[in-house]
Structure formats: structure tokens, C-alpha cells
């Protein structure tokens, strides 16, 4: 897990990850916030292995999360906002409802 530098521990904002409250500095990306909170933020829909933010620049698609109900968001490309509801993705995106469904 990454720790936040003490020098930026002002301006903390709150978000939830799978219903749990967390805090992170304002202005950082959702992916950076995830790195302070969990090791894996989803499982690969192909291999089932744990995945988390990696490239931090919109290329690898390993940081996909559901943000405020919208699935498959690239967490590294979204700035964290106060009160955001972030959910880990447990499967591949469903087409009708826009939610996720288990692969198996």
C-alpha cells in the first residue's frame, strides 16, 4: 500500500470504496486514491487474477472501477471528488443495465 506524504495531508476529501469511507488528498486521481486504500481494485475478467492501477496514464486499463454507478471507468483518468462512490469490478460489464455481472 502507498502512504500519502505528510506534506500533502491537508485538504483531505472523503470517498467510499465498496461502502467503506476513505480519505485522500484533493486533486489526485481516483487511481492514486485507490493505491492508498487497497492492493487490488478488481479482478481480471480473463484470468481472474488481482489487478490494480499500474500505468497511471490511461494506457493499461488495469485500474477499471465503477464510479457513481458507471462501470469500466479508468480510475487514473478521473480526478477524485468529494463523496464519490467507487466500487471494485467483480466481473465483465453487463450490457442492459450498465452494471457488472459475474463471469462464472
Amino acid at each position: 500500500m502507498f502512504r500519502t506524504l505528510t506534506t500533502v495531508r491537508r485538504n483531505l476529501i472523503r470517498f467510499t470504496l465498496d461502502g467503506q469511507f476513505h480519505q485522500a488528498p484533493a486533486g489526485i486521481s481516483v487511481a492514486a486514491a485507490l493505491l492508498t486504500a487497497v492492493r487490488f481494485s478488481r479482478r481480471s475478467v480473463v484470468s481472474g487474477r488481482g489487478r490494480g492501477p499500474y500505468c497511471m496514464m490511461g494506457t493499461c486499463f488495469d485500474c477499471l472501477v465503477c464510479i457513481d454507478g458507471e462501470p469500466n471507468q479508468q480510475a487514473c483518468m478521473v480526478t477524485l471528488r468529494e463523496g464519490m462512490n467507487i466500487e471494485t469490478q467483480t466481473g465483465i460489464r453487463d450490457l442492459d443495465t450498465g452494471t457488472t455481472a459475474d463471469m462464472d
Partner: protein
Amino acid sequence: MDYDIAVIGGGLVGSSIAYGLSKKGHGVALLDEGDRAFRASRGNFGLIWVQGKGWDFPAYAKWTDEAAGLWPAFDAELQESTGVDLGYTRPGGMEFCFDERGWNDLNDCMARVRTNSDGAFEYEMLEHAELRKRIPEVSSAVIGASYSPRDGHVNPLYLLRALHQRLDAGRVDYLPNRHVDSIECLHGGFELRTNDERLAAGRVVLCAGIDNVRLGKLLGLNIPVRPNRGQLLITERVQHFLNYPTLQVRQTREGSLQIGDSQEDAGRDDGTTTEVMNRLASRAVSIFPMLKTVHVVRAWAALRVMTPDGKPVYQQSSHCQGAFGIACHSGVTLAAIHAGPVADWVAGGNPHPLIARFHPDRFDV
């Protein structure tokens, strides 16, 4: 002689032929250009497509059908020897139609392919209700589809990777970053000069896509190909719903949707345009309305290697014994036949009876 055969071009056509040659024990050099090359094999759609091909050219209908028929064994052999799962399936493919005229054209085209293949080509025309039974998500904008059980699809990048893995393990010297500057036809062989070395080979096979125009001239071969740009879109992975590859949309095993296809004359510009991407996306949504909320994550264009009539070119030089020119835009569909009968032919074996039909003298007037 350094090599029995030099194959120029490390894309799907060159790699398939080099693979076939190495299996028969020939010593092969596979010369590949760097990433400055157009690399059509890294941009294609992944269909193994039979339907519609050769409606105006019986040899092409038969050639394509035979090539697709060789695919199951080719896939099994590659997967077994490399451990790479190509994602090959053959559930049959569809082409959608949106109006009466489209339906009639498709119907006519399918009937001609059946005739031209001497009845080997199987197909069904599916009206909307029947189509819905097989793909319930299809919208009412689609009035029907042609279906052929002969079609399939594969992950084209895994195919290229598996072929190269086999080449590394076999008797092929893969020589990357080689630009072939000159080829000299000598008595009993060829001397190739690249940016890096001089190579001597008993035979030479040109599989360099659009660059075959230049390379062909070095050997007195006229290989009339031009670039034809295709753009395609890749979406985020979504739940599986589409069990059939179609000409417009296919779903990969991993869940991504590939959306194509466009045909443009854009010279050597292999960039994308918002206008075409928009059109492709709109058409996909008109077929499957629930795709409206799905995100596109990548888009690219690649240049097809197009002959004047869209059919492949296979030719052997009449005055330079052992020089061959090969060009086509169907490196995936034809991969197994290139690794089999075409590789045997360039190695000096008897030509497949259909090969002579693809000589470019058909373009002469």
C-alpha cells in the same frame, strides 16, 4: 548459398509461408522491416471469411473455401506446438442487411458463390424473425442476414505471435529491421542486399504487402497492389452476447467488440478520421442499440494490400527462375493454405491446380 529460400515480409503471409517451409526442412531467412513498415498484419479484423468471396471469380470461391477448411487442423497444430490459444472458433458468420435491395444483392451474391464453388459453399438467408432467434439483441433496423457455417474468426495478433514462436523454434532465421535495397538474379540463385548484409538464397518469395510493388520491379515482376484503408474501433470488454462473427461487428473471446469495416482510398495515410469512426459507431448502434452506452477504448486504421480485382496474386517469374510474388488482403483467411500448398509450390513442388488462376496476367488487356 546462405539459405534455401529467402522470404521477404514478416507479416501473416510471409510468416505462414516460412512456417510451412520450415516444417518441410527448408533453410529459410525471413526478412522483416521495422515498425516504419505499414504492418497490415497488426491491424486486421480477424475474420476467416468465405461468404461472398468469389461470386465473380470461381477459382477464388474454391480457393477461399479450401483455405477455411484447412483452418481447424492448422489451429490445432499451432496451439499444440506453441501453447498459444488463438481463440479460433467457427460458429459460422453473418452479414447484416438493412433494406430490400441489400437483401436481394446478398441473396444473389450467395447463390453465385454456391454455383462458383460447385455447390461446396453452404449458406442460409435469414429473415428478421429467424435472425432474432440466433441473435436476440439485433434491432429491427436489420431486416435480415446471410449466414454461412463456413466462416469463423480468430485473434489475428495471437496468430502472428504463434507463427513467430514456431519460426524461432524451427529452421527459420528471423531477421528483423531489414530493408531489402536490391535483389540480383544470379545463376542458380539470388543475392539480396539489405541495410545490414548481403544474403545468398536459392529462391526468393516477395510477401512484403504494398512494398511488393517496389520489390517486384527489382525482379521484373509486376505486382499491382495499392493501399486500401480500413478503420476499426475496439470497445471496452462487455458481457458475451454475440456468438457469431459478422462483417460489421465481432466480439472477441475476452469480451471486447471490434467494429468495422471501412474501405477508403487514402494513399499511404494510415491514420483514423472522426468521420469514419462516427459512421462505424453509428452503424454498430443501429444494429445493436444497447451498444450506445459502451465505451470505445481504441481505434486504428490499417492499409489493406489490394489488387485491382481484390483477389490474391500468386506468380512465379518466367525469366528469373525461383522468384515468386504473393499479395493478398486476406492473410488470416488464407494462412493455412499459405502454410500448406503455397509453401510447397514456392519450394519447387507442383503448383496447386488453382494457383495459375491467380497470375496477374489476368489484369492485362
